[in-house]
């Protein structure tokens, strides 16, 4: 065992690398459970979505839900994993009040997939990390224990609705190097899985759960590296919590290492729970740490074979993943990587909206600006999904097209956008009811001559070299006719003044 470090051995504060690996459980988006026909609907009254199989009644048998398996294969393929042609089920034996059979059907030594990766790239260039996936396997969920400690009764109640729900467990290599990276990677994973239609990844409903393993690598002056004991963090209820918990834990391990010098291998892996309100991790008294799951092959299920056809079908169902879509959008519509990132991160439906809009407008950058500045902002304010957004791409393209044609300016366009959104009327309808009509060149010429004649001071300023003084004319022109195009007014006025 390493002796406590002398002060000279201790590296300067902050000069360590945080090593992070994640274990993510994702609930698959199936109508029914993994081994029986019970529905998986969230929020049903307790113990109403159960049958002999998921209750673990004597004599009941599991039958695999092939759709769940196919979804899991789709996810694993998107994570660049190798899919095993032959995979089996194992029993993970442990006792828990909400585990009705006394074992969980899972996969032990022959998971259906392994050895993949998922890359996360910070759009602002802060980091780019390719995170290895050790394995992805399928298993059934347990039930839920609800501890009712009201009125000092300390009753525990069991809801088995969730028992048997299909879960995909994704285990990464310890490839992440900061809490920020971990959070960004989780966002990318969630985005991917939602894109694939594999999971809704709703953390509030327990569709996505994360445990994190973290320790520090601390370089010593002699070139060797001290490694702190690995800690597993549980109970993190949001990606923000994951980031905070990891940051807290890294700091805590740094302090602990400075105080004790304890290194990896000197103690068994510790499990700590994240206390979100307090913002700290706390050591858990965890019997499972030394638990022995006595895995053995599940005799009630037959091994699963995955054919080339199965793989082809899974690939066909995958669609373009977010990373590919970002490149595609940037290239096809000549928008920046940052813009493509913002759009793709909003989900497949928003991308479809954007592509329809950009196609109609015939130009990506303008469409992207409208998406980000107007559509997304409005969506954020109003809530709801892009599918139900009242201004459909043809209407928005109509507005953008009229702006480009010089019918009105962008701020006028925004007013029309807001009115179409509020009223549900057509763009043409709104344009005419607001009295917006294109101002023809003759009318513009007359208006500008009147303004030049009425503003000798501005004319003098412009003639004196202060062209920006013309702005005063634009304001007056808009008052006289709100439909005028400011750019045209400016150009016309300057032309008149020069000709004086």
């Amino acid at each position, binding site marked *: 065992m390493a002796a406590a470090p002398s002060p000279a051995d201790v590296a300067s504060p902050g000069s360590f690398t945080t090593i992070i690996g994640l274990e993510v459980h994702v609930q698959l988006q199936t109508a029914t459970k993994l081994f029986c026909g019970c529905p998986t609907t969230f929020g049903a009254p307790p113990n109403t979505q159960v049958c*002999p199989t998921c*209750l*673990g*009644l*004597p*004599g*009941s*048998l*599991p*039958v*695999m839900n092939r759709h769940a398996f196919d979804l899991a294969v789709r996810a694993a393929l998107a994570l660049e994993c190798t899919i095993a042609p032959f995979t089996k089920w194992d*029993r993970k*034996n442990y*006792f828990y*009040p909400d585990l*009705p*059979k*006394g*074992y969980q059907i899972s996969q032990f030594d022959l998971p259906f997939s392994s050895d993949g990766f998922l890359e996360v790239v910070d759009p602002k260039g802060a980091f780019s990390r390719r995170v290895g996936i050790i394995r992805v396997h399928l298993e059934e969920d347990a039930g839920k224990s609800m501890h009712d400690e009201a009125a000092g009764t300390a009753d*525990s109640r*069991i809801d088995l609705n969730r028992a048997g729900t299909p879960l995909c467990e994704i285990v990464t290599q310890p490839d992440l190097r900061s809490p920020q990276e971990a959070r960004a990677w989780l966002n990318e994973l969630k985005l991917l899985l939602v894109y694939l239609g594999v999971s809704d990844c709703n953390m509030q409903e327990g569709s996505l759960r994360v445990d994190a393993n973290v320790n520090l690598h601390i370089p010593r002056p002699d070139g060797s590296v001290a490694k702190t004991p690995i800690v597993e963090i549980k109970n993190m209820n949001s990606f923000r919590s994951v980031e905070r918990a990891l940051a807290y834990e890294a700091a805590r391990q740094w302090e602990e290492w400075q105080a004790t010098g304890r290194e990896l291998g000197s103690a068994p892996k510790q499990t700590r729970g994240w206390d979100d309100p307090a913002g700290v991790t706390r050591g858990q008294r965890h019997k499972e740490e030394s638990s*022995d799951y*006595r*895995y*053995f092959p599940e*005799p*009630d*299920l*037959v091994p699963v074979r995955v054919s080339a056809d199965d793989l082809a079908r899974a690939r066909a169902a995958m669609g373009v993943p977010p990373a590919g879509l970002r490149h595609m959008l940037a290239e096809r519509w000549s928008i920046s990587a940052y813009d493509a990132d913002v759009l793709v991160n909003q989900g497949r439906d928003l991308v479809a909206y954007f592509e329809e809009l950009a196609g109609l407008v015939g130009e990506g950058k303008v469409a992207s600006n409208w998406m980000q500045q107007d559509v997304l902002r409005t969506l954020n304010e109003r809530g709801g999904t892009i599918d139900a957004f009242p201004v459909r791409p043809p209407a928005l393209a109509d507005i953008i097209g009229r702006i480009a044609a010089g019918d009105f300016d962008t701020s006028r366009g925004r007013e029309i956008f807001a009115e179409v959104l509020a009223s549900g009327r057509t763009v043409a309808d709104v344009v005419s009811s607001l009295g917006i009509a294109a101002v023809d060149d003759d009318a513009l010429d007359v208006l500008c001559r009147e303004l030049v004649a009425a503003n000798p001071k501005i004319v003098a300023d412009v003639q004196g070299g202060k062209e920006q003084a013309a702005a005063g004319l634009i304001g007056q022109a808009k008052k006289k006719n709100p439909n005028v195009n400011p750019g045209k007014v400016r150009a016309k006025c300057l032309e008149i003044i020069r000709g004086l």
Partner: protein
Amino acid sequence: MPSDPLQLSAVEIVAAVRSGDLTATACTEAFLDRIARTNGTLNAFLCVDREGALARAADIDARRRAGRPLGPLAGLPVGVKDALCTADLPTTCASKMLAGYRPPYDAEVVARLRRADAVIVGKTNMDEFAMGGSNENSAFGPVANPWDTSRAPGGSSGGSAACVAADMAPVAIGSDTGGSIRQPAGLCGITGLKPTYGRVSRRGLVAFASSLDQIGPMARSAADCALTLEAIAGHDPGDSTSLTDAVPDYSRMLDKPLTGLRIGRVPEHFAAGLDPEVARGVEEAFAVFRELGATVHDVRLPHAHHGIPTYYLIAPCEASSNLARYDGAHYGYRAEPGGGHRAEPGGGHRAADGRDADATAAFESPLVEMYCRSRAEGFGPEVKRRIMLGTYALSAGYYDAYYAKALRVRRLIRQDYLDAFESVDLIGGPVSATAAFPLGEKTGDPLAMYLVDMYTVTANLAGVGGISFPCGFTAGGLPIGFQLQGPALAESLLLNATDRFQSLTDWHRRRPPLAV
């Protein structure tokens, strides 16, 4: 045709009910009366459903009178081993743990029996959770062998075997994990078939060792077994391990001549330990088969002698997991709080200072106490022994030495059968080393009890089918059993060969001189 339904075969009963010569009601009443007279002596039934059976019979009679179609087992009384779930009757597995437990669904086999219009007369006694070879591990008392009520009927389907032997039902359903149909059939002088693994759905069979369990018919003859198997066999989408192969018409193939049939004889079966009277009976059976046109050849099953240790690793390992669900919380037996703790020594929950006065103090919480005591009080000693054996063998550090090695030997045993069936069509031999043994003789010696399965476990490990039937009697008047084993899905041939044997012999027609 004799007028007494008790003397009719299942085939005859079904025909008589169909033709109207016998009503299902009269038939059912006759067997129920027989049960009422004999069950006090034999304890073969744990529960008798007089009312339900008569209602069912009346319905069948009414449908027949109305000219409506009847199922293939119409009016046939059947006893069902208490390991199969029945929605209208308790299902206890002969365990205190499940005393009074009523499942919310019928086992697939029970549902098929009902669809075939069989009349389920009751649930038969067994070794607790099917663990045992004498029926003495029942929490509700042992079954007596009808041929000598001081002797064991064998197990674990001892109630099913005894009820058929004593004419309490013409047919019973058993389950066989290591010999639990064939051995009691042999000791009770009836015919019992363990089909190929997966031939009959296990859904609703309370699991003992899932990779070995198989349900099968027990009756007086191969013909009656064939009739029953036709009704219960076949693919069940609710059992992933159930085979999709079509179910042959077993009954039609019974009388095929055995000319040219090659029967293997394993010399090791006749080594030390085999009772000479049994050995003689078995050799005489080979002679009968020769007379029927079959030829007998020596074959080797080189790893068969590893069968018992292999079985007693794999079966307890699976059992330790299958029985983890009985925790007293959801269903079944629950220990009331505050009672004296009765865990076996070494159970790990005894108070450190050995005081029992405050039993609860030895537990982490009242909940944990409930769990521990429910299992300590609900399971019998043999069940606990196997749970502990299995838990130990699966534990980290032992898995490779025990469970993983047992799986490898299991593959060798399976290969032995594949190799043997290259040169023979069936393998014949004894079912058990002795005829029925006295009650109590082996209860103090678990290892001796385990050895009663030595000729039968290998078929379960290999997943192949086997049938046992009477081939003679000892001087003391006890039946001697003969076993035939076949390749996968050879049920037709097993039933055919047994039927031909029974066409030349009348051992299967003998009835125990049961005093009631």
